[in-house]
């Protein structure tokens, strides 16, 4: 591991100032905020991340969960995943978020990992993690060996000819269906970014994964008021029953009245280069009877643009069945 400066700022403004000197907030950053450390220190040991300065934000007052005046929820950047998943309001009103978080990682890691860190979780693509290999995300322009190599776990939605790396987060998928807003404090002030605009498609710049700029500190995430009477499910399918990344996952929030779907928010995990909200599936659901053929049609719509690689075509059907089953489970709950 390369050595670094270690700074513990007294407040968020000082953290932003200390981070603003980095040339990028994306891959190759000189400065990184350190929260739980579960992604960053892992990648620093692999020399995939080589920051010259770490800014420890663990003691900033960013770990609260509070009700917002509009009836929504404000979730601090550094609250631990386990605390958020077990928060009574989250369990009652935003169950899909609690389920998604508890489906991820292990109990130990959830005690460390934070809201903001999870938003910025890096891909598990083996070529990204191995500095002996080319990788357009890690070293732009070097190529993507995954496209012709080992790609069984990688993305089928949102890929480009430069990168097919999957966003590995479960929490992000729930945040997508809950229409979360990411709040960022930066050198030019504060701003709010809808979750759907926060993560970027790889396109020709897979090294850019989010809209964050140098100095930008995620301070909190807000959720809109819960949808009354909604049914919420997170379903995760993977190679082993626990402590494994998703091959395919689905987060759904639906309301059903008189047998008809009246509201739907749908997102997929494990199959996209970013947390994959599907407006196509939502449009296919609303106004239709809540039954399996219609759920399957919605799943077909969600995967219509999927592009298989040499080893991962199975994920397209897996994701369809995952979403169909999640909708069925929600409708029957």
């Amino acid at each position: 591991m390369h050595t670094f400066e270690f700074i513990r700022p007294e407040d968020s403004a000082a953290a932003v100032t200390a981070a603003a000197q980095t040339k990028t907030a994306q891959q190759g950053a000189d400065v990184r905020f350190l929260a739980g450390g579960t992604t960053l220190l892992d990648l620093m040991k692999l020399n995939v991340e080589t920051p010259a300065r770490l800014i420890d934000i663990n003691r900033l007052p960013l770990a609260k969960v509070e009700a917002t005046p509009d009836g929504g929820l404000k979730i601090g950047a550094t609250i631990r995943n386990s605390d958020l998943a077990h928060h009574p309001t989250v369990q009652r009103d935003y169950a899909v978020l609690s389920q998604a978080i508890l489906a991820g990682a292990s109990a130990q890691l959830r005690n460390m990992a934070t809201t903001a860190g999870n938003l910025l979780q890096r891909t598990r693509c083996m070529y990204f993690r191995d500095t002996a290999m080319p990788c357009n995300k890690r070293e732009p322009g070097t190529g993507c060996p995954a496209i012709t190599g080992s790609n069984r776990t990688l993305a089928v939605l949102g890929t480009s000819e430069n990168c097919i790396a999957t966003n590995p987060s479960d929490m992000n998928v729930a945040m997508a269906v809950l229409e979360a807003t990411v709040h960022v404090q930066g050198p030019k002030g504060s701003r709010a970014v809808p979750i759907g605009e926060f993560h970027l498609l790889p396109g020709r710049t897979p090294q850019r994964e989010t809209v964050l700029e140098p100095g930008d500190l995620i301070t909190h995430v807000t959720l809109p008021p819960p949808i009354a009477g909604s049914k919420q499910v997170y379903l995760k399918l993977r190679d082993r029953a626990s402590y494994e990344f998703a091959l395919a996952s689905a987060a759904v929030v639906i309301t059903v009245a008189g047998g008809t779907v009246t509201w739907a928010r749908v997102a997929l995990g494990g199959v996209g280069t970013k947390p994959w909200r599907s407006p196509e599936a939502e449009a296919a659901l609303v106004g239709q009877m809540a039954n399996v053929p219609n759920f399957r049609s919605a799943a077909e719509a969600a995967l219509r643009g999927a592009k298989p690689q040499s080893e991962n075509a199975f994920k397209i059907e897996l994701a369809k069945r995952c979403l169909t089953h999640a909708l069925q489970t929600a409708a029957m709950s």
Partner: protein
Amino acid sequence: MRDDPQAGLSNLSRRTFLSAAGSSAAAAAIAGCAPTSNRSAARGSPEAVAEGPNIEGAVPVTLRINGKEQRLLVDLRTTLLDCVRETVALTGTKKGCDHGQCGACTVHVNGRRVNSCLSLALMHDGEEITTIEGLGTPDALHPMQAAFVAFDGYQCGYCTSGQIMSAVALLKEPCGPDDAEVKELMSGNICRCGAYPNIVAAIQQVRRNV
């Protein structure tokens, strides 16, 4: 390889930042930022820091490990795991994968279980660390240690301290009564010998008796 870790940043050298804690040079450079060692260094004179190897650029950190305050000098990069094992010489905590994938390094920080391999010692200045050595003694085993013995919850033993630290923490976490729920919450601890059935049995016995 980058020889100068500060390349591309301002002229704040690591040494300036961390060993000249509280100096006006560092404080003025980034208003409102204090190096992590500020509190320890300001509080403790050099002789108050524990004897240790002469590590260039080492920084002081104070950890309360198994109830005993440890004033230590560590390289910035030292993980909590390496600090416990190498600096404090408590080798009951094991290094398996060193990437948060196996759970052998599980310790408690302020009563909660974490992977000590994915945490820097410096992040825990002033915090309470419990390792397997802090649970019980050979003559007075913690009930979980005794249950692992009684149920043969290991074969080679390498993962055992992590398993037991996880299991003890689990007793205070939300967990349903069934084996399946214990297995789910213990999934972060891998046992290559496959002692899982006996590990679950040991944990369930302790839970029934609590």
